[in-house]
């Protein structure tokens, strides 16, 4: 197999990161550009080019495909990504906090307490990952104009309101309030009169490839 063929095959493998619909339309075209950008005798993609294709492809899978004209929905989707980021941050802080407490417990030879903290960390991580996934899922589905996602987002914000009263520590309360406010703002934007047309069933496919 020639260097060119090797390189092309490697690029095709990386392009799998892109959504299928995008690849069907643009794969050959991007390959033309990738091959034109390659160096003489190059056999495999550079690390930078690989990272560029992987990150761009993954971004294209999750990016909100909301037209600019529907500004409120675009803003709501962005807020949901912010919500996911804030939840990630709070999860990291919670893990560090629990791990610190767990280490203190181990120092004190409180084996039973250490065990329960380990369980608490596991439950916290799983719960946090579920919440982050919900943020990302809702952002994606609302970005696609799914009305059920708009309704589900509203229900989830309602449930988060109940969760507000279950927090004890100051940091927990601050993060819970912050994510709740983000969710509330996103839901408010989703139900704006200008957003409603975007959620009406229609036969025309949205722009973007992640649908």
């Amino acid at each position: 197999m020639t260097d060119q063929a090797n390189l092309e095959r490697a690029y095709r493998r990386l392009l799998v990161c892109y959504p299928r619909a995008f690849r069907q339309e643009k794969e050959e075209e991007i390959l033309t550009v990738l091959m034109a950008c390659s160096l003489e005798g190059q056999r495999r993609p550079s690390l930078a080019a690989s990272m560029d294709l992987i990150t761009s492809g993954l971004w294209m899978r999750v990016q909100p495909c909301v037209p600019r004209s529907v500004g409120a929905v675009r803003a709501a989707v962005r807020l949901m990504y912010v919500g996911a980021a804030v939840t990630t941050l709070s999860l990291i802080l919670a893990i560090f906090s629990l791990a610190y407490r767990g280490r203190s417990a181990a120092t004190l030879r409180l084996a039973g307490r250490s065990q329960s903290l380990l369980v608490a960390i596991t439950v916290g991580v799983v719960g946090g990952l579920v919440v982050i996934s919900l943020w990302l899922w809702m952002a994606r589905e609302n970005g696609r104009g799914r009305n059920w996602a708009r309704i589900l987002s509203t229900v989830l914000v309602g449930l988060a309101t109940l969760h507000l009263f279950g927090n004890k520590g100051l940091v927990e309360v601050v993060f819970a309030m912050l994510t709740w406010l983000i969710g509330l703002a996103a839901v408010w934007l989703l139900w704006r009169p200008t957003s409603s047309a975007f959620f009406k069933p229609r036969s025309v496919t949205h722009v973007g490839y992640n649908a």
Partner: protein
Amino acid sequence: MILTALAKGSTHGYGIITDVEKISDGRVRLRPGTLYTALDRLCADELIGVDREEIVDGRLRRYYRLTPAGAKRLSTEAARLQAHATTALTRLNLAGGIAT
């Protein structure tokens, strides 16, 4: 910069990369993945559109062009930058003739 590259006429992906590099004096070298993410967004916003396709040496080339909305956006942005640059140069001149 992509809009600026397309302002001289319809261009294909590799042409945009080389033109952007030229416009920026070699400071900006777009990578293909980044370029196509940007092209996709610009197409979605109807600032650019596909002009035509060609097969060259067995490879597909798709040419992009500015739409009227894209030309208007570029013109507005260029005027804004020009006004900013003029203000900066005027103030520098007033401050002691640093700019010549």
